[in-house]
C-alpha cells in the first residue's frame, strides 16, 4: 500500500495534487481504466512497483506512457487517440472483449471526469444537453456501469461557480448510482448508502462546504 501523500488542507488542491491523491488510493495490482483528460494524468503518479495494469478501451491491457519522437506508432494509441507505448506483458484484444472486461465486472477501478455527480452517485459526463452540441458517448456508459469502483476526478465548481456535486443531475445521465468516490480541488467525498462523507476538505471548512453544496454530510 502506498502512503497517503500529505497535502496542505488549508488550500485547494492543484491538478497534479489531485492526480497524485487518486494514484495513491488505487490498490496495488488493480486493473484500471483512466478516462480522457485530467484522469489520464493519474498514470504519471502511479508507482511502477504498484503493479497496476492500465486498460485502454480501444483494446489494450498494459498500456504504457505517452509515446514521443521515434517511439510513435500510428497503430498504438490510447482512448484519446494519442500515441502511447506498451509495457512488458501487454495484451491486445478486440472491442467486444474490451467492453466485456468492463461490463463483466473485471475492471477494478475506473477514473472519470464529470460535468455533475449527484449525492446518490449518479454520473453525468457525456453530454451538456445543449441543443447545438454534437453528442458523443464513447465508452463512458459502459465504464461507469461496469467497473467495480468508479472514481470521479473533477473541479468541485464549474466556471460559473455552481457546484458539480449536486442533489440531482440536470445534465443527461451516463449511469445511475455508479460513483463511489469524488476527488475534487476542495475535497474528497465518499458516496455511501447512507449519504455523502467528506473524507477531507481542502481550502474550505466542512460546514462552509456543506452550506455551499446544500448537503448534509454523514460520518463514515
Amino acid at each position: 500500500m502506498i502512503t497517503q501523500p500529505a497535502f496542505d488542507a488549508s488550500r485547494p488542491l492543484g491538478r497534479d495534487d489531485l492526480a497524485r491523491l487518486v494514484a495513491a488510493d488505487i490498490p496495488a495490482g488493480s486493473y484500471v481504466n483512466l478516462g480522457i483528460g485530467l484522469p489520464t494524468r493519474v498514470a504519471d503518479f502511479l508507482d511502477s512497483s504498484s503493479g497496476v495494469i492500465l486498460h485502454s478501451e480501444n483494446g489494450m491491457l498494459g498500456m504504457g506512457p505517452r509515446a514521443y519522437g521515434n517511439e510513435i506508432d500510428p497503430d498504438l494509441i490510447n482512448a484519446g487517440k494519442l500515441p502511447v507505448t506498451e509495457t512488458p506483458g501487454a495484451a491486445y484484444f478486440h472491442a467486444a472483449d474490451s467492453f466485456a472486461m468492463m461490463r463483466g465486472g473485471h475492471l477494478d477501478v475506473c477514473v472519470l471526469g464529470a460535468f455533475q455527480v449527484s449525492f446518490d452517485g449518479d454520473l453525468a459526463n457525456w453530454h451538456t444537453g445543449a441543443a447545438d452540441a454534437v453528442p458523443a458517448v464513447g465508452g463512458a456508459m459502459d465504464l461507469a456501469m461496469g467497473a467495480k469502483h468508479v472514481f470521479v476526478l473533477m473541479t468541485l465548481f464549474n466556471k460559473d461557480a455552481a457546484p458539480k456535486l449536486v442533489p440531482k443531475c440536470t445534465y443527461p445521465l451516463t449511469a445511475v448510482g455508479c460513483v463511489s468516490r469524488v476527488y475534487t480541488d476542495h475535497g474528497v467525498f465518499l458516496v455511501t448508502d447512507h449519504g455523502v462523507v467528506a473524507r477531507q476538505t481542502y481550502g474550505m471548512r466542512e460546514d462552509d462546504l456543506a452550506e455551499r453544496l446544500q448537503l448534509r454530510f454523514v460520518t463514515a
Partner: protein
Amino acid sequence: MATVVRDADEAVADIQDGSIVLIGGFGPAGQPVELIDALIRSGVKELTVVSNNAGNGRVGLAALLANGQVRKIICSFPRQADSYVFDELYRAGKVELELVPQGNLAERMRAAGAGIGAFFSPTGVGTPLAEGKEGRTIGGRDYVLEYPIKGDLALIKAFRADTLGNLVYRKTARNFGPVMAAAAQVTAVQVSEIVDPGDIDPEAVVTPGIFVDRLVKIAGVSPLAARGAAR
C-alpha cells in the same frame, strides 16, 4: 471462401445504394482508408455507416461523408477535435446520427455475427440512450434490450493475411476488425501483406478465414509500422 482481389475497387465493386456498411477503426488506427476511397469512387449513395467514430480530418470516412454518400451513421463517438466534416453535416441536418455506447455497439455487431437475436445489456440503463427500449430486471439488476447490427458489407484493415483469409492485426488497430468481419454478409479486408497458408501460426490467427470474403493488398505501409510488426 476468401478471394484475393486485384485492387480496392474490385473489393467493393458490387455495393448497392442504401447498404449498411461496417467500417473498422478507432480514430485513424485500423481505419481502412483505401477501401473507403474505393467506396467513394464507386459513387454508391444513401449508405448507413457503422463505425466507432465519424471521421477525422478530410480523409477516409470523413471524405465519404463530405461526398454526401452517407444517409445515416451509427457510432459511439462522433465528436473529436478533427471531426469538423461530420459536425457540419450533422448541424445542417444532412446526416442522421444513432449514438450507441461503444460496448453496446461492439456487442450488437458481435451478436449479429454470432446469430444472437437480441440481448439484455446493463449499459445505458436510466440514461437518454435507453429511452423507448424494452427493459428487464434480471437477478435484481436492470437491463435494456439491444438488437444486433448486421452489415451488408464490412470494410476492415488487418496487418497480414494468408490467402485463405486468416488475419493477424497490429496493436490497437485491431479494435472493431474481428467483430465486424463476422457481422457482415460480405467482408473485405485490406492488409499490408498476403502470405501462403501455413505462414501464419494457427495459434496466432485472430480472425479465422471463414469470416473473410475479399482480400486486397495495399502497399505503402509506413516503415515504422512494418518495423513494429517485425518484432
